Structures are given as C-alpha cells and as structure tokens.
C-alpha cells in the first residue's frame, strides 16, 4: 500500500484511555531497561520508547500532544541513565512533533507506510541525539550509517508488529 496524501478532514483521530496513555510508555521503559540484562544487544538496536512515541503521535495526529508525549517519554528515558537529562527528551520531542505532523497529512495506517515512517524517524532521532550529545554536552559520539540503518530497520519491523497490537487500544474520538 502506498503512502497516500489525505486531507486533515479525511484522517481518523484517535484517543487513548488514561491507563493506556500512562501504562504503555511505562511498560516500554520497563522492557527497555530489563531486557538488556538477558539480551545485551537489545539496547544497541531497539528503542521501544521511540516506537511508542511514534505510535501515539501518529494516532493522535495532534502536534502539541505528540511533542509533549515525546518530551515526557524522552525525559523519563534520560532519567534512567546517567547522562544529562534532556538529550533523549529533545530528540523524542522532535520525533513526536514530526510524527504527529506527518500523521495529519499522510495515511500511516498501513504496514508499509509505518515501516518507512519508523525507519525515517529512527534516523531523525539518532541524528538529533548525536547533534545534541556532541554539540551541546560534548559527549564523544561516533556516527555510523551502517548501524543506523540496521537498527532503524530492526525498529521498523518491530514497530509494525507493536503498532498492530497497540491499535487494539485505539478509541475513536
């Protein structure tokens, strides 16, 4: 299915219950922190909070809601680490804004579109993180296109499956 251009009136806008709104991001953070203990490569390739940010932003199709969701999830992810708080926050704010803005204009309900959108936003997220970490915080960072594309693809594949599950919790407005 191709990505189709739709008007703002044509697209569906969804909302989520409060338990889902709070619980899903928390679960994503929990899994992201716990699974690497058993599968160390998980943290290298997969960013579940990012996938959740993209999903909520695209489903709500509200840029403000999207960027705030991204900011909150990103800041929470920063707090679990030991680096400065705000690096993930900024990256996910940008992604949340971008995904929700894209959701307004494009039909991102089908698997193919979701795959491409997730891959693209993973790269955007990595680029923003790299820029902020290196430019603002002066953290030594290395950029690798190979790793970025591979991890982006892995996230995109996982994202498509995850979005399919999370679609069940959508509520029409």
């Amino acid at each position, binding site marked *: 299915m191709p990505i189709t251009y739709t008007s703002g009136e044509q697209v569906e806008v969804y909302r989520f219950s409060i338990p889902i709104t709070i619980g899903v991001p928390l679960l994503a953070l929990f899994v992201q922190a716990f699974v690497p203990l058993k599968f160390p490569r998980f943290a290298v390739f997969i960013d579940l909070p990012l996938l959740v940010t993209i999903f909520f932003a695209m489903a709500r199709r509200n840029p403000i809601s999207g960027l705030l969701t991204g900011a909150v999830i990103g800041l929470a992810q920063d707090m679990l680490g030991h680096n400065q708080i705000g*690096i*993930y926050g900024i990256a996910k704010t940008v992604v949340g804004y971008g995904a929700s803005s894209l959701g307004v204009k494009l039909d991102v309900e089908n698997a193919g579109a979701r795959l491409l959108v997730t891959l693209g936003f993973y790269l955007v997220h990595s680029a923003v993180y790299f820029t902020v970490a290196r430019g603002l915080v002066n953290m030594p960072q290395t950029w690798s296109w190979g790793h970025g594309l591979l991890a982006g693809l892995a996230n995109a594949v996982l994202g498509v499956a995850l979005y399919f599950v999370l679609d069940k919790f959508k509520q029409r407005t």
Partner: protein
Amino acid sequence: MESVLGRYRNLIILVGVLFLQVLGLATQVKRGGNDAENTRLIRIWVVGTITPFERGLVWVQNGTGNLWHNYFYLRGVRAENRQLKAQIEHMRLEQVRLSEDAAQARRLQTLLAFKEQFISRTVAAQVIGSSGSDLSRIVYIDKGENTGLKRDMAVITADGIVGKVLLVYPSVSQVLLISDQSSGVGAILEKTRLQGVLRGTPSGEVVLERVMSDEQVPLGETVLTSGGDQIFPKGLPVGTVTRVGNGKDLFLNIKIKPAANLSKLEEVLVLVEKQERQATAEDNVRVRAADILAQRLPSVPDKPATDTKATQGTLDGSAKPAAANAGSKPTGAATTPQASKNPTGTGNVHNAPVAGQTGKATDLTPAVQKPTGASGGTTTGSKPAPTQPKPTSAPPKASKPPSIQPSSTQPAPPQSNPQPPADESSPN
C-alpha cells in the same frame, strides 16, 4: 498578531519545549559536567516507578529458576561434585605455593612499612535493571542507602571489577560500568607493571590509556587495578589485553577484555568497607603451608608428645633462638629423630628430612624459610626472642643426635615439592 500566533502555535510550542530542555541541559553542563548527583531528586521519580517492577520480576525469575535447578534438574550433580572435588585438591596444592609467596610478600611489606588495603565488608546485590541505552552503560542493583551503600563504592564479581556506585537511592543504586565512556579506573599490567587509565568507549569496549607507545605490551597480559583511583583496592582483576595498537599523542591504544562478563551480570559484590593497615609479618603464620599439606595426609600419626626440656638441651650450641612468631614455631622435638618426622607438630612428614641426613627440621612457615647461612647456628627467625637464652658453645649432650651437629646444617637435598630448603629450627 493573534492570527500569527494561532497559525504558528504548534511550532511556537515546539520551540518553547525544546528551549526549556536546552536550558536544562545547559544548566546541568555548567553545574558539573557529568555529575548525576545534581539531578538525583528528579531521577528518583522514574527510578522509583520502574525498579520495583524490575525487582519483582527478578524475584519471580530467580524463584522459578531455583525451583527448577534445586528440585527438578539435578542431572550431572554427582559428576559435577567429583569434578569440584578434584578442583579443590588442585587448588589446595596451588594454595601451598601461593601462601609461600604471600608470606614472603608480607615480610617484605613489613620491612618497607607498607600500608595494606583489606576488603573488610562486602554487600551482595542482585542486578535488576539497566539504563536501556547503549550510550549510558549502567545497571541498577537491588541495594541502596538502607543497606549502607554510598556513592563511589567499588562493585566487583568473583571474576573481576564491574564498576562503581554512581547514584544511591533508598533501596536501589545505580552502578556505572567500567565500559561506560565516562568511567575511569586506575589499572596496572601484571607483569610489565605499566600503569594506565582504564576507560570505556562509545561502542562499549574497554581500553587502557596513558601507556607510552615505546612500551612493549604482550597480548594476553592480565590487567589489575592499581589502587590509584582510591575506589578499587589494588590487585583486583580487570581483564586481559586483546589488542595493542597505536593511539593518539604517543600513547598506545590497548583494548582490554574485561574479566567480568559485563553484559550478563546477575549478582555483584559492593565493597562497603575497606581497611588500611600496616602490613605485619605475623598475619601470615596462622595458616602454614605445612599445615595445608598435612590436611591432605590423614594417615600420618598425630604429633607426639614433646619433651621440651630435653629438646632445649639438644639445641644448645646448635641453633639460635627462633622467630618471635609463636604460632608458627616448631617445637624443639624437631631435633630428635622421632620429632624430625613431625617438626611442625601437625602430623606432617611430607618434607621432613630424615634425621641424620641434614639434621634439620622442615618448617614451611615463612619465618623459617631463609636459607641457612654458613655453618651451624643459623637463625631461622627474623627476630630473636628476648627471653630466649643465647646459644652457647657448650658441647652437645648425649641425647643429641649427631645429625644436629653444626657441620650437618647443609641445605637439604632437592625435593620433589617446590619448597624452600629446610632450615634448622629452634624453639623459643
């Protein structure tokens, strides 16, 4: 104006949120670089929300695993038991050798008035979570302030060092792994004694920095902690050298494979208390190599009763007083043929020379390891006991076997056991 604000409302909010976060970042950077302590109060909310679930899941996981391993899956336990017993035997022999080396090292440390660091208390902790990011290599453990943990305490496993405590919360702590790029550990190469700084890289590798490029560093060499960072005690295993290359600014780039498996940590030890005290030679005599060997010879008869009076007489004129280490001194019975089989009083005849050959008692205690000097009257201890009568030049008494004549104090013939030559021993 209103229409402009309304039209660009989303963009303005985006810029505002980004600006706030950039401001927050700048504040943190200005305050103290990478110091997570400043933001502890903010972090505690997320950590306090996530870690109880992690702790619960680890508990359930361990409970299930224990049930399976302890009650259902016992295949191969006997074979493993046999294997472990063999390993214990092997390690006992190794311990004999190492205890000699350790004793010698302690004596030297005493002479040099060295300060030794001892790990006096550790707390075992379970790893319950991670940061979930490959850019922040930390783990969470299930012990915190309530257990007495503090910032900058060393975290180790049986294999080697793991990291240090970075942030402490009431019931959990954040541990910075040595593979993180903000980590730094003082390290020393075991054989070449070259010192450097152990650091993590963005890709999670561990490298040893600050070793000059004109030094030779062999592959496979063991790296230990140097103690220079004031966090890790000296001598803990760090890892092995896996690659040596040229780095920046005339320094080598040495890649290290950590001794501890940092990617699969389950239980760790936190060094809660270290003690520093001056080395004393007395410490090493409590367990003697001969005693360890004696444990492996259950058929050897017990120590016979010694006649100290007679013994005292036999030694006159042949040996000086022994060392002040009372616990390790051989009895005077060592000079009798009977006692020469049991010079240490532990039932050990493993290395005792037959009386009449050398006339010397074999005592593997460090205090009597010195090779004999010239002829007769060699002092075997490091200090003469003040209460001990000085050896006299009186002729040997009738009870004294000829083997203890001064002329017989030749070094013992080489033995299969790699231990120092037997020395002449003397009682207090």
